[in-house]
């Protein structure tokens, strides 16, 4: 019965102060939601078990060489498999992108080349047909594939005769032997599974092929022991080949991680801890702020508490009575947060899956789950303890006599005052830093979003190819392949023009008529290897001619230079026929200028000053490279134009894998811009919430202090203090904390800005940092002063006679 009375009383108090209730609830919901969302998102991303039978024991096996990520070669795998004793179901697979062709159209789908044990390892049987068996892997076997439920439904219209049908996979007619159950996309994003060939597995140690591996430890719980044996065996195998095949010197070791954890390269714990620490800090700030708001309320009712105590209420009863207000509001906040986070996770899931329809691993499903609910309860209980129990405990443990006795009145205790000041300083510091960094990040995002890179990707498709060294060892072979590909592409009636680009990095430029004190002082240029017309991507000719197939090995080495370079070194002159020297592949090459083209900002120097480096385009026929980004411009719209590339590619080399699938050239940039916009919006939102939190926090602390000092205000006013005197007194106290908090934040920001400025090669002018700092200082000062002024003003408005009677 007493509890019901207390609850009713607490509800009445909350309804009596709707503004206070709304403000407290808002801070709580904000703090709890941020923490809960961060936890749930990261937990689902990193720690949830693989949603497969015995998924918790399935391990992804990768390698490290000298601390860098690596994989197993077929040679290492074969030897390791025969010698090791700790793993069962040890196998390999290779993630690939496959092209499904349907006449003139086609589609890219992610898939895997897998061995015969792969499906057994995943403890999943096919919905229809069978999975891959040893015979499928033999050289010369019929091309077969297992398809996903999604491919069956979408590409084959859920045909009942699917097992009698074929698909054209990478231009090869392939029999469908099985369909996997709905949702199965193991090992990550696969929608189609083809057998690994025995040829792929029986390779020499220097073949340069690498595979992902999987396995289960035989004796559960002996992870360390297993790793010890595997590492020892692997390193022995590796060291034998280091000398034989001139491999990278160092130690090769293995990583045994769960599949979800392997997605972050084993760095998940750090990310999880770091991001959760930030989220918990925000929750802690919210708790402190709400605690202060509730403390201010309990102080306002200190006399009431003292009377209750005098009338015989026990400490326990007093604490319970004082806590109900906090318990109700925190529980309500907890429930609202769970609903809000549930909705946020649901929409995050939809957005992320729509951004990367094929790129998300199948276990990345975000939504409200048991772990999030449990964590919500833990967070809510922690919040009740911090923001309700502690203020109630403090209030209940007051000196009843001194409160009931009319004696000296005045400020908070010195200890409480120091704590309040420390909290305000800390909040100002944190918010200032968040705002400064947030503003910087917003500037960077804005710059990126609005950047004119000097190219034109309208109606341009792109793909990236990295020719395997083993298959294309000679420069002539590489040039011939790309030349074939470009010609095939260009022969299509819808293709306007084609070009390849290979950014070879920055190189030192040497001019005959210039002296350089050292190599370090030499200017740098961006070197881009190219074949075809650069006008395909909007780098247009201003003077001279484009690079052609005649600019080949043996002929005079040539270059097209950017307009900025021409103006910089030969102002007012014609540059055609002039030459300069540039270091390419370790050689100082003399290049003759054949053309001037429009400027272009290389995306890799995005953090550098715009146009800090000029560009030179060298002939891809003279300087060959395995890697090339291929661009082709289309007449009209881009629909169904991927197939043009694949058909050309299959004619040039049927068995080649793309480094990056064909897509509109604008797509990556749009995605990047979307991501930057999202980052910018998130930063702004976080900064805004932090500012709101600080506003409420400082308001709460000041309200707390003012509530305790209301009687003192009355005394001061009785002896002649004006409203201005009183307001100034509080503002002056707040000013000290503001100066300290801002000062610390500005020092840290100055260091960060200095480092960023150096790193980004003066991306922004120095005055911008000063303007930014000034804006944050002025803005935050106004907000803090407002947060102090509001409760002070309210207390000052009280007539001195009322303030003197204030309990």
């Amino acid at each position, binding site marked *: 019965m007493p509890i019901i009375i207390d609850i009713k009383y607490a509800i009445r108090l909350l309804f009596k102060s709707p503004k206070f209730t709304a403000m407290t609830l808002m801070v709580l919901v904000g703090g709890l939601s941020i923490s809960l969302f961060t936890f749930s998102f990261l937990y689902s991303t990193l720690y949830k078990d693989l949603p497969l039978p015995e998924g918790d024991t399935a391990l992804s096996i990768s390698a490290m060489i000298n601390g860098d990520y690596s994989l197993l070669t077929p040679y290492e795998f074969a030897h390791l498999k025969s010698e090791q004793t700790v793993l069962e179901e040890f196998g390999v697979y290779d993630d690939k992108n496959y092209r499904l062709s349907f006449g003139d159209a086609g589609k890219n789908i992610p898939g895997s080349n897998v061995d015969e044990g792969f499906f057994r390892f995943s403890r999943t049987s096919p919905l229809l047909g069978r999975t891959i068996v040893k015979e499928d892997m033999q050289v010369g076997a019929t091309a077969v594939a297992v398809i996903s439920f999604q491919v069956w439904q979408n590409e084959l219209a859920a045909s009942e005769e699917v097992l009698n049908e074929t698909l054209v996979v990478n231009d090869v007619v392939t029999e469908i032997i099985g369909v996997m159950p709905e949702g199965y996309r193991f090992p990550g994003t696969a929608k189609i599974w083809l057998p690994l060939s025995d040829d792929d597995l029986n390779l020499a140690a220097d073949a340069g092929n690498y595979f992902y591996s999987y396995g289960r430890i035989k004796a559960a719980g002996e992870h360390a022991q297993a790793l010890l044996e595997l590492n020892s065996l692997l390193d022995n195998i590796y060291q034998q080949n280091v000398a034989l095949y001139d491999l990278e010197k160092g130690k090769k070791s293995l990583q045994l991680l769960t599949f979800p954890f392997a997605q972050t390269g084993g760095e998940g714990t750090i990310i999880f801890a770091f991001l959760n620490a930030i989220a918990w800090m925000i929750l802690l700030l919210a708790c402190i702020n709400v605690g202060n708001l509730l403390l201010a309320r309990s102080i306002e009712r200190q006399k009431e508490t003292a009377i209750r105590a005098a009338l015989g209420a026990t400490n326990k009863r007093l604490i319970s009575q004082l806590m109900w207000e906090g318990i109700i509001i925190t529980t309500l906040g907890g429930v609202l947060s769970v609903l809000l986070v549930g909705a946020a996770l649901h929409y995050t899931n939809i957005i992320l899956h729509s951004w990367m329809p094929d790129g998300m691993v199948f276990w990345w499903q975000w939504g409200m789950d048991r772990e999030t609910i449990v964590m919500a309860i833990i967070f809510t209980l922690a919040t009740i303890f911090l923001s309700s129990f502690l203020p109630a405990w403090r209030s209940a443990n007051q000196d009843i006599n001194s409160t009931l006795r009319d004696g000296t009145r005045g400020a908070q205790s010195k200890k409480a005052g120091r704590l309040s000041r420390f909290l305000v300083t800390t909040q100002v510091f944190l918010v200032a830093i968040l705002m400064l960094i947030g503003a910087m990040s917003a500037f960077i995002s804005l710059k990126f979003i609005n950047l004119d890179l000097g190219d034109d990707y309208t109606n341009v498709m792109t793909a990236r190819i990295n020719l395997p060294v083993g298959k294309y060892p000679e420069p002539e072979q590489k040039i011939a392949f790309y030349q074939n590909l470009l010609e095939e592409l260009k022969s299509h009636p819808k293709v306007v023009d084609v070009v390849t680009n290979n950014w070879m990095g920055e190189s030192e430029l040497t001019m005959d008529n210039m002296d350089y004190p050292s190599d370090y002082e030499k200017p740098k240029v961006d070197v881009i290897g190219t074949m075809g017309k650069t006008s395909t991507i909007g780098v247009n000719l201003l003077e001279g001619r484009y690079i052609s197939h005649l600019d080949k090995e043996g002929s005079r080495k040539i270059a097209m230079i950017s307009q900025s370079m021409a103006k910089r070194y030969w102002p007012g002159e014609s540059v055609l026929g002039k030459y300069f020297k540039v270091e390419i592949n370790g050689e100082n090459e003399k290049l003759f200028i054949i053309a001037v083209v429009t400027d272009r900002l290389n995306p890799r120097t995005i953090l550098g000053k715009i146009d800090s480096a000029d560009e030179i385009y060298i002939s891809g026929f003279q300087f060959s490279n395995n890697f090339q980004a291929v661009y082709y411009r289309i007449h009209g719209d881009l629909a169904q134009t991927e197939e043009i590339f694949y058909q050309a590619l299959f004619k040039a080399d049927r068995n080649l894998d793309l480094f990056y699938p064909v897509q509109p050239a604008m797509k990556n940039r749009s995605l990047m811009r979307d991501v930057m916009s999202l980052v910018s919006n998130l930063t702004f939102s976080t900064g805004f919430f932090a500012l709101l939190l600080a506003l409420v926090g400082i308001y709460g602390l000041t309200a707390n202090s003012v509530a305790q000092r209301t009687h003192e205000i009355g005394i001061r006013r009785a002896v002649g203090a004006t409203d201005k005197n009183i307001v100034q007194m509080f503002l002056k106290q707040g000013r000290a904390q503001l100066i300290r908090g801002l000062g610390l934040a500005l020092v840290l920001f100055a260091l960060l800005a200095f480092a960023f400025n150096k790193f980004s090669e003066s991306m922004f002018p120095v005055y911008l940092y000063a303007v930014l700092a000034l804006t944050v200082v002025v803005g935050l000062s106004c907000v803090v002063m407002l947060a102090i002024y509001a409760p002070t003003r309210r207390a000052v408005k009280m*007539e001195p006679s009322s303030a*003197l009677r204030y309990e």
Partner: protein
Amino acid sequence: MTALLTLNNISKKFFTEEIETKAISGINLIINKGEYISLSGQSGCGKSTLLSLLGLLDSPTSGEYHLNGTDVSLMTRDQRAKIRSEQIGFIFQSFNLISDLTVFENVMLPLTYQTGIDKKVIEEKVSSVLEKVEMLHRKNHFPSQLSGGQQQRVAVARALVNDPTIILADEPTGNLDSKNAEAVLALLDKLHQEGATICMVTHDPASAKRADRCLEMFDGRLISDQQNIRVNKPIELVAS
């Protein structure tokens, strides 16, 4: 005698939610310079409210209030604050000292709200009034380190430090034992003899008799205004 303050038909009502409470109504009063007035009456009759109005701690709902010939009833909050810091001295039943300020700082407070007073002058004035109430030796103590009687003497010193035109005392002995109460009353007697105008709210008939003039209130109205034949007592402060 010269009229120091004049109240013409002063009323004060309090409004809490929809309830209107008439605290005082239709008070007419003249207090002359140098008078020692006691104000008594039953609890809740409006004594403290009247004292708050006299001390400009509150403003009347209706009526006129002239202090030193100036109509103060329509003054702004800041104007009233200025008058309080320069012309009025308060002594409260509950002392109302600020716990985080020392005795010296508490006494100094009214002067800090006046402008243009030299720091040295402030120090001299504070020391002088503290000496007067025999509390100079405790100037660096905090209120919590003093007895009730000592705290009230500090409060008296604070009321004196700005050389007020009138001292308003709201049951100054209400929280004190008889010994300390006598000391405070003796102090007020002494101040009166030195020319101070005092208005004291009291329940105690013996204290009221020390005043020149006794006012009695009932239900928000002045029902009696009598001249007193003062019984002069030897002035001595009882140290506690």
